[in-house]
């Protein structure tokens, strides 16, 4: 398990909110917000990998992009290596970019189709360094070696590569300026399984060698278990559980995490037979209109009355384990109604706009 003692936090996110306005009518009046990320706080320590998991549309990618200010967040603060990201003006922000980079989900679309590999990897060097042409080329070759790309490919275009190779280009590009922090936004989701392992191993290897810090966004729970030191689970724009990896996989605390982990298939057929899945009913509510109280109260198998009224806070209930659930409130814990059924009378706030 990752030892946080004595390691300084590299990234501190506090109260991050990313609302996308909904406008309607002739005058485009503001009628509401899609709360893609709603009050998210966490820290990532230097050299650590924080896994961010959750189902599609829960705000994982938005969160990652907002941290790097590829979106303009609505509220909150992000401090990376002692520097405020959200308060920086455009000029300062650009100078901070070398420190924080991103590996994108779609390796095809995220590379400019009209640029060669060397141009894609070398462009940040043009912008942020004063290297000579020969030095730049040497650096480009060095990066290509690091990610396992043949140097002969430097003058080819992205469409001439396979998906795994393209993702390597994306990683080499992110590494070009020696970043400290990399947001990996589902870097393996577009790859097939054999290539996924290669890319994840490459990321781990680079982390060991270069001392990188990752925010690893994924919906692949087994992959996150492999790479992450701590895991944050998101649901409907909020972090509902944040724990060290081994603890969360051994004993998930939040009912949603329990349901999520129960869905991971078991490779052993004997164990698979006895695996009991917690099947949630209903759909994720619309982030434009989240339910009152706890966001999960519409589908929670252990829902209580208080859940529909009061929003739970993310609190540390055991050392290093944060959960946002009324089940673990010191006062409410005892009143959990046994066998409470999930309410299905919330059809009005189902997703699907």
């Amino acid at each position, binding site marked *: 398990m990752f030892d946080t003692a004595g390691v300084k936090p590299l990234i501190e996110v506090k109260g991050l909110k990313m609302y996308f306005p909904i406008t309607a009518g002739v005058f485009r009046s503001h009628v509401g917000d899609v709360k893609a990320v709603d009050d998210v706080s966490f820290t990532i320590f230097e050299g650590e990998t924080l896994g961010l998991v959750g189902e599609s549309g829960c705000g994982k990618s938005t969160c990652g992009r907002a941290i790097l200010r590829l979106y303009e967040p609505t509220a909150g603060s992000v401090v990376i290596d002692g520097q405020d990201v959200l308060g920086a003006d455009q000029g300062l922000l650009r100078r901070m970019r070398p420190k924080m980079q991103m590996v994108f989900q779609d390796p095809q*679309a995220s590379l400019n189709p009209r640029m060669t590999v060397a141009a894609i990897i070398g462009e*940040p060097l043009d912008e942020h360094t004063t290297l000579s042409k020969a030095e730049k080329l040497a650096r480009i070759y060095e990066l290509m070696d690091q990610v396992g790309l043949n140097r002969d490919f430097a003058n080819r275009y992205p469409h001439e590569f396979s998906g795994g190779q393209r993702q390597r280009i*994306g990683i080499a590009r992110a590494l070009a300026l020696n970043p400290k922090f990399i947001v990996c936004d589902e870097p393996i989701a577009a790859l097939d399984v054999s290539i996924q392992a290669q890319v994840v191993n490459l990321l781990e290897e680079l982390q060991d060698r270069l001392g990188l810090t990752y925010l690893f966004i994924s919906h692949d729970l087994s992959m996150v278990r492999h790479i992450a030191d701590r895991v944050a689970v998101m649901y409907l724009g909020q972090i509902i559980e944040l724990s060290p990896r081994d603890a969360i996989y051994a004993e998930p605390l939040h009912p949603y995490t329990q349901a999520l982990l129960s869905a991971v298939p078991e490779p052993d057929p004997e164990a698979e037979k006895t695996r009991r899945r917690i099947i949630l009913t209903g759909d994720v509510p619309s982030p434009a209109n989240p339910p009152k109280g706890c966001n999960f109260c519409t589908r929670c198998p252990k829902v209580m009355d208080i859940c529909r009224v009061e929003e739970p806070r993310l609190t540390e209930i055991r050392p290093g384990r944060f959960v946002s659930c009324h089940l673990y409130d010191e006062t409410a814990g005892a009143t959990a109604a046994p066998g409470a059924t999930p309410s299905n009378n919330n059809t009005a706030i189902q997703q699907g706009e």
Partner: protein
Amino acid sequence: MFTFTLRRLMIAIPTLLIISLVIFLLLEAAPGDPLGDVPLTVPPEVKAKMREALGLNSPWWVRYILWLKQFFWVEPVHLWDALFGTHFGDGMQRVISFQSRQPVMQIIAERMPQTLMVVGLAYVVGVLIALPIGIISAYRQYSWFDNIGTFVSMIGFSVPTFFTGVVLIIVFAVKLQWFPSVYDTTLKVTDAASFWAQVRQMVMPVTVLALYNAAQISRFMRASMLDNLGQDYVRTARAKGLTEKVVVLIHVLRNSLIPVVTVIALGVPTIFGGAIITEQVFKVNGLGQQLILSIHANDMPMVMTLTFIFAILIVLFNLVADLLYGILDPRIRYD
């Protein structure tokens, strides 16, 4: 690339032959008599002799093949003679206009400069103002600049040139008397005063045509920019920490220009075709105006030759657009 060009040029030969036949047959089928304007006082036997002299008595296919021979053999030989002072073409029958009894190519050569100057300049001006408007409109989508740009291009699109031309004449030539309403082709630019006169007489026709061209191209540019601005690789470019200038002008613009360049290249043949209506409104005696005059007079060799030259240009610039595509987009390779 070279073999592709060669292959395309070879395919162009049968294409153009078929086009020439279609044009010829269409003109043949069109009603009207080249001698219709000859006064009734001319005796019928004289008229018959004139018909004989124009070669109108031979069957259509004889006249078609004769035209082919004249266009593809005699005219190039004459061009060679004119360029190098030789006399290979002496005595060969050139394509002669029924109307003026002058070689058709000579008339075209006389009128080409006016058309290229006015229509060509309007095209260049149109492109030069359309590209920045399209880029800024897309980058600041739905801003006041974009809304005004959209409104102006809507006007450019929907108001015909014969209307804008006349409006400009009434306002600037009749009321304000800033510019002359008639384009004077005989004007020779010799000094500053005549240059100024030339500029003044070009302002209105160029404005009318430039508005029309800019309206179309700026819309293409805007749409193409918007398409690319939302792409993932633009986000990658921003994440690299590039300046907005580099992101927009290098990454987005270069990718957006590809379809726009095609549209611009395909528009070039229309310059040579002349803007028939605008030339008519401002009395610019260019190729477009000549085409109208020849159609009125049933001057078949002239109409046939002009139309066919437009066809060649269109086929040629189609090829140019395809080649540009291959140069701009590394994913497209012709070989």
